[in-house]
């Protein structure tokens, strides 16, 4: 078997978020990895890999990555609502990861982020959480 990495997990996260009609209707700026371009409309979602340790045993490998998923909006209510929708979509979700079996997808922490000023001087709110995902694959 070919070893697959965290790339299909990222794909699965985006797929799962896009499968939520309420979330898709709420985000006008789309879903971005790492950082969103400057002129993207609010609100939008950013996800980022935090760490991705591999845990090998005799039969296969477990990937236990942490992902931050944050929503950015121009008002805190919208940001919090989006965050709730993201949690609803991802927490305890059975992610459809190519070449891997999902064992766990759970929100394990909130991000202690506050309001920020963007390049146009607008106050924006970042609300999000850290998700722990465990997947398993045989080698």
């Amino acid at each position, binding site marked *: 078997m070919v070893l697959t990495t965290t790339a299909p997990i990222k794909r699965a996260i985006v797929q799962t978020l896009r499968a939520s009609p309420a979330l898709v209707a709420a985000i006008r700026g789309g879903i971005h990895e*790492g*950082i*969103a371009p400057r002129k993207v409309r609010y609100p939008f979602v*950013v996800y*980022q890999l*935090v*760490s991705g*340790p591999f845990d090998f045993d005799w039969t296969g490998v477990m990937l*236990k990555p*942490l992902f*931050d998923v*944050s929503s*950015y909006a121009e008002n805190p209510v919208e940001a919090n609502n989006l965050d709730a929708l993201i949690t609803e979509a991802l927490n305890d979700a059975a992610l459809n990861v190519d070449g891997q079996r999902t064992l766990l997808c759970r929100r*394990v*922490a909130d*991000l*202690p*982020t506050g309001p*920020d000023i*963007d*390049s146009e001087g607008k106050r*924006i709110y*970042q609300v999000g959480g*850290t998700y722990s995902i465990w997947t398993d694959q045989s080698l």
Partner: protein
Amino acid sequence: MIDFGSLMQDIFEGAVQALGEGAHLVEGRAKQKAPVRRLFGDGGQAIRIKSISEIETVRSTRDAVFKAGGPPTVIQPEAYGEARTVHGKKPPIHWRQRRMAAAQHLLGQYDAEMSNRRAGLAPHKTMLTRRGAYEVRSKRAAFATWQHLSIGGRLRGEIFSTSPTVSGNRAEAWVISPTEYAKYQEFGTRHNAAHPFLRPAAEESRGEVVALIADAVRGALPHGGANVEIEVVVRL
């Protein structure tokens, strides 16, 4: 007769000590992963990495040198012809040059080089990049550590771990990054992508910390044969 009270005390003390070692381990990892402002270009002093073809190219030269009565103290293949130096993609960190005195000296070199270029002389590489020269001049990222004033690496230099504190049957050790912009590096902002360093360090060290504590507990048990339950929580 076994004094279970003192035995449990020994086990707990061993676990607490191991927890302190674990916190040091996480601190070291976090320092390795902490993003550091890039002040230096390769400047001709990068780590020398030879490709296989280069090594093969100078093989005959090396053989000739050995046959002619042994190698010189330092072999410099460039002196014999073909081999070129391949520079690593990532420049070295230059710990010593980050000290203020050394950085000021490098700034002097940089300024001299720039005035030479303005005078129309052929350009030479400088240790400091343009960004590095700006940082040294403005002292924007200057910080003091171990009684030395350094430039850049503040985020890394200020990470520390606390000694374990005990309250009842619970012990805690923290790895802290007190720099005010640490949070923005760890979690990202609208303008900058996140460069997490604390959480990956904690995650990667989790198994080793647990193993350290387990070893300490095993060492404290007189015959190694009892069930002891210790809960280890890594809080992000």
